[in-house]
Structure formats: structure tokens, C-alpha cells
């Protein structure tokens, strides 16, 4: 129950530091804007409403339904939160959910947390928002638009977020684009159906019980052209970029090479420190043995310390 149900939380070690840090920066900026916007809207109620609903989305991710052959469908919740509370609140809620999952349950890494917030919170939210608003507009305010929009938002949020994950892995050199992208896309095109259906079911319940909430969303979302554009752009970008990248994986490696500013930064550093300072280290095998011995000594020292502390307590 602790491990995540969607193969979407990237652990530490799978992203290059450059990609992880860049996504941390983007996420931090978006979260800051989101707090400002939600604070203006909810005022003092911000803390209780965001906190309780973050807990609800966290718990809601445990809801499931049997699909077939022992597999089950689950909820991520970005689309649901976006439709019911608006994109900015959804960004905050998903940030808290993904953050607690990383901090407490090691569901996704800490350095990779920026990326996970970006994929599930920001991509998931903006894409859902764009899809839902578009279908609502096309339906001319009729009821079917609500349901179709709910399903599409749920499905697309998972699908596009998965593309983002695959692209980041490819950019980091962790998984080749021509395999990662079709694989993630294929799996999540299916998983997304579950998300879409649950979102649809939840929206129809809220429509039956509290239609006022959905109405309030309508008026609130009028001023969110920015999110609209961002969601549309992200969807298009990822939907176009991914197939391109998977056909031409070399192109992505070229980008990765360019983006890997750490590589370029490293070169002068190596030149500054001449090789003869570490003569022994140039021999990898010797260095490995050395590290092994040193490591064993460190661990032994810790074991010795803890044993001594215990003995002192018993005597």
C-alpha cells in the first residue's frame, strides 16, 4: 500500500542533476505563483481547505477498481482537483501530496521531487485544465461536456505526464528515447483510461450533489487564460516532441549534451587540478579496493561505537 500505484514517481538517481535542478526551479516558481493566486481567492481559508483536500487526494489514491486479471485502476487526482478547485489550488494540493509521498514514503526521490511535482502537479494540472475547458466550451455548457471533459482531462493528464517523465529520463541518459517514450506512452494510455473513468464518476457525483461547486469553477476559471495557454502548449509540445524524440533519439542526446552544462563546467576544473596530485586514483581497480577498505573501516567504527554505547547502558 505504501508503494505508488502509478509508475510515475521518479526516484533519485534516475535524473541527471541538471534536469532535476532545472525542474526544481520551474516548479518552485509555479508553486509560488499558485500560493499567491489561491491566497487571494480563499483568504484565511487557504490552509484548512488546501490541507484537508491534499489529505483527501492522498487517501483517494488508495481507491481502486478491478480491471481484469488481478490488475486494478487507480486515481492520481490531478484532473479531479483541477476540475473541482481550479488549476492553482490543484498545483498546491498535488505538490503537497507528491512532497509528502517523497519525504515520508520514499515514493519518488527528494532531488527528483521537483520533477515529480512538475509532472504530476504542473503538467497534470495544466493539461487537465486545458482539456476540460476546451470540451466544456465545445459542448456549449451542456451536461455531456462535463462528463466528456472529465474523462478527457483524466486520461490526458496521465498520458501527457507520462510523456514528460519519459522525455526527462531520455534527457538524463537513463532510458533511450526510442524505447522509453513508446513504452511509457503505451502503458499510460491504458492506465489513463482508469483515471478518466474515475474522474468522470467523481464529477458526476459532484454534479448530482453539489452542482454549485462546478458552477463556481466556471466563473473562477474565466481569468485563467494563462493556465489555458500553458496547458495547451504543454500538451502540444509534449505530444509533438515525444514522437519526434523517439524517432530521432540522437537529436535528444544532442540536446542533452548541450544542456549538460555540468560537463562543460567540469572540464576547466579538471585542468586546474593536475593529474599528478592523485597519482594512485587514476588506477580504478586500486581506487576501488582502497574505497572498499576505507568504507569497511567507517562502518566498523560505527558498529563499534554503537556496541560500546550499548555496553555502557547495560553495565
Amino acid at each position: 500500500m505504501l508503494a505508488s500505484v502509478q509508475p510515475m514517481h521518479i526516484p533519485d538517481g534516475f535524473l541527471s542533476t541538471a534536469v532535476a535542478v532545472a525542474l526544481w526551479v520551474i516548479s518552485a516558481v509555479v508553486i509560488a505563483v499558485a500560493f499567491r493566486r489561491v491566497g487571494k481567492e480563499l483568504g484565511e481559508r487557504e490552509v484548512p481547505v488546501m490541507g484537508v483536500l491534499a489529505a483527501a487526494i492522498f487517501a483517494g489514491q488508495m481507491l481502486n477498481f478491478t480491471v481484469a486479471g488481478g490488475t486494478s485502476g487507480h486515481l492520481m487526482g490531478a484532473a479531479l482537483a483541477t476540475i473541482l478547485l481550479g488549476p492553482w489550488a490543484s498545483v498546491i494540493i498535488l505538490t503537497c501530496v507528491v512532497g509528502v509521498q517523497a519525504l515520508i514514503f520514499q515514493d519518488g526521490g527528494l532531488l527528483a521531487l521537483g520533477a515529480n511535482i512538475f509532472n504530476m502537479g504542473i503538467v497534470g494540472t495544466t493539461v487537465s485544465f486545458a482539456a476540460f475547458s476546451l470540451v466544456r466550451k465545445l459542448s456549449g455548457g451542456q451536461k455531456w461536456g462535463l462528463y466528456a471533459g472529465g474523462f478527457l482531462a483524466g486520461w490526458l493528464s496521465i498520458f501527457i505526464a507520462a510523456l514528460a517523465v519519459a522525455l526527462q529520463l531520455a534527457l538524463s541518459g537513463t532510458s533511450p528515447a526510442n524505447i522509453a517514450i513508446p513504452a511509457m506512452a503505451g502503458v499510460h494510455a491504458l492506465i489513463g483510461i482508469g483515471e478518466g473513468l474515475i474522474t468522470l464518476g467523481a464529477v458526476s457525483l459532484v454534479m448530482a450533489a453539489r452542482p454549485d461547486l462546478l458552477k463556481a469553477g466556471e466563473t473562477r476559471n474565466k481569468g485563467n487564460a494563462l493556465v489555458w495557454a500553458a496547458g495547451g502548449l504543454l500538451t502540444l509540445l509534449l505530444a509533438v516532441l515525444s514522437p519526434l524524440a523517439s524517432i530521432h533519439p540522437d537529436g535528444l542526446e544532442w540536446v542533452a549534451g548541450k544542456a549538460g552544462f555540468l560537463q562543460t563546467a567540469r572540464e576547466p576544473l579538471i585542468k586546474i587540478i593536475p593529474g599528478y596530485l592523485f597519482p594512485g586514483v587514476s588506477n580504478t581497480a586500486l581506487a576501488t579496493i582502497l574505497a572498499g577498505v576505507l568504507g569497511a573501516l567507517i562502518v566498523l567504527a560505527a558498529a563499534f561505537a554503537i556496541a560500546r554505547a550499548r555496553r555502557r547502558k547495560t553495565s
Partner: protein
Amino acid sequence: MSCVVEVEHISFSYPDGHPALRDVSLELSHGEKVALVGPNGAGKSTLLLHLNGILPRQSGRLAISGLDVSGKNLGRVRALVGLVFQSPDDQLFSPTVFDDVAFGPIYQGLAADEVRTRVEEALALVHMEEYAARVSHHLSVGEKKRIAIATVLSMKPAVLVLDEPTAGLDPRARRSLIELLRELPQTMIVATHDLPMVKELIPRTVVMDHGQIAADGPTASVLCDPVLLAEHGLEM
């Protein structure tokens, strides 16, 4: 076989090692109504959750209408045991009352006509016929309790198992719920703290404490034993 519910020497510990049931035995014959009383944490809810296999038994024997509660019988047993949870909010999760009451029959794979008939019958039994199209979320607590009972009656269960049916009800809603329970002919197990209701409605009382059955007998004699009541933290 005359016994609808057969519980023999059941014990159960939660994963943290806390023992919740110790060697519990209980038999109910057809149409019998039994009250389960005792302090919080006595093991009442744990026992109820065993009756349709939500909690798997760790030892002993457990059968409903002669069917062993385990493995491939679980689906059948869950249709036979109508478990009504304490909080109706946990039980009502569909947009409309109709959807909630129809859950059991649809899950069983009944035809659409049969499902509709079952829902109508169940709602009629709890006197809520005109509520089918209503939204569960907006009902009062008393109404929700009745609908929660209808959601299991639609499965035509052999046994009704109710956890705290009168908790949180105002006097009027409580009164009408008691009258409803009086009308229902099913075999019934009612876990409750509402001893006046027990005295009025249920002929047999089982006292549970510390996971064990402390007393089992006619309600009149159990509830009129002040020493027994005091020993297990009960008050009339």
C-alpha cells in the same frame, strides 16, 4: 440445519499483536435477533467483520447458512450477510439513492429488470420508496441510515448485521428506526450501546468484553443483573 450463524471458538489478533477476539462462540437460529453489547474496544465490530469474511478468521469455525466463510464461498456469503456499517457515509458512495441500493444486485450480475425490482422492494421495506432519485449526500442522518439498510436488503440477505444503528440519531429518528427494525423479519445481530432499545426490541443479549463473551442469555435477565452490567461498564 437450523442455525443461520455458527461461530465456533474464533480468535483473532490484529497485525500489531493486539488480541481482539478470544475463543468466541455464538449461534443464531433462523429468525433470531441478538444484541451485542459491551464497551468500546470489546471486539464487537471485529466479530461483525468476521461474519462476511472482511477479516479472515485465524482459528475456529465460522459458517453462514451452512456455508463455511472462506475462499470460494466468500462471494456467496457476502450476499447472505447484510452488513450495515456504523457510519452510513461509508456505505453511500453513489450519486443517487437508486445507485447505492442497486450496487449489490448489479455486482451479483442480476438482469436490469430484476435490479430495479430489488431496489423498489428494498426501498419499500424501509419506507423510502419516493427517495430513489434523491442524492444520498443531502439526506439527513436518519434517512441515510434507512438507505444504508436498504442497500443490504436489496441483496436479500439471510442475516442482517447492524453496527450501532441508533448512534447519532435524534429521538424521533431513533424511534422510527426502532420501529423499522421491529418490522424486519430477518435474522439479526445488532451491536449497540443503546440498551433501552435492546430491552425494548431484542429478546437475546450477548455481552462482550476484552474480546470474550462475558454473558449470553435472555435480555430480561442480562440487563437486570446490575453486577454484570457494572463489571462490563454498562449502564441502563
